[in-house]
């Protein structure tokens, strides 16, 4: 099986790769978003702490 055949998925490329793509994006977002939100939250807390006792 060559690469072209692999990506063609026997004619079902659209359905198969869209499924995997959506799955990948949703699962990645579930990891990345909480990490970014946590970093932002910690930064805000640090700023607040600095303002209260400089």
């Amino acid at each position, binding site marked *: 099986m060559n690469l072209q055949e692999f990506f063609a998925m026997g004619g079902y490329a659209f*359905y198969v790769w869209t499924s995997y793509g959506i799955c990948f994006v949703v699962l990645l977002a579930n990891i990345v978003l909480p990490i970014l939100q946590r970093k932002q939250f910690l930064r805000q807390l640090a700023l607040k*702490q600095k303002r209260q006792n400089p």
Partner: protein
Amino acid sequence: MFLIPDSVGRFFHRMASPPHFYAFTEKLLPWLTGIFLILLACGLYGGLYLAPPDYQQGDSYRIIYIHVPSAWMSLFIYMMMAVAGAIGLIWRIKLAEIVAISSASVGASFTFIALVTGSLWGKPMWGTWWVWDARLTSELILLFLYLGVIGLYNAIDDKRTASKAVAILALVGVVNIPIIHYSVEWWNTLHQGPTVTKMDKPSIHVSMLVPLLLMALAFKFYYVIAMLQRAKLELLQRERTANWVKKLIEEQK
């Protein structure tokens, strides 16, 4: 409680303390992520490359490797959420409340993936994106239950009260779980019956079954990773005034 060994009891007792939980997850997450990536790579390689095309469905059946594990996870995570919610409700353990609500968004994601990939599989095989049959409709209700849990939690400012309300909603919604599972047997549906969890012998070839089980295991690890990431955020937000959080910020500078 006398059935549980002392060391296990001590472990859970320690884990119920927020700073301990936070530090422990920091140490645990790289390992979990490593195992997850290995399982995922093996599962995808086996499913997309090694496994032969289906004799009826051709290559379109390869959607199974994300569709079925996602659907399993949508039910599994719901049960985890309901059990954690019940523990939080009965013993008022803060960490259980956090695990419950952190599971909700991951569960909703898997339910969404199961529905969308099912639709993308149904179009070429059944000739339709959607039918209002028992399996599909009950799974859609599961998505609404998850969204209801998340919405209710965000609507109540006091997070301890919010957790109580959410736990009750989650427990009431448990009634939907056996309905989803048995829907393909109780009603005539377009959705195919179970092929893997049949009691006698799974009617799926081993070259297709192994990648499927690998993906299912990978998704279990993914759930723990995503849930813990969300739990860390949730914990910091709830404990923002606690001393251990202040110390954490000072250490980061």
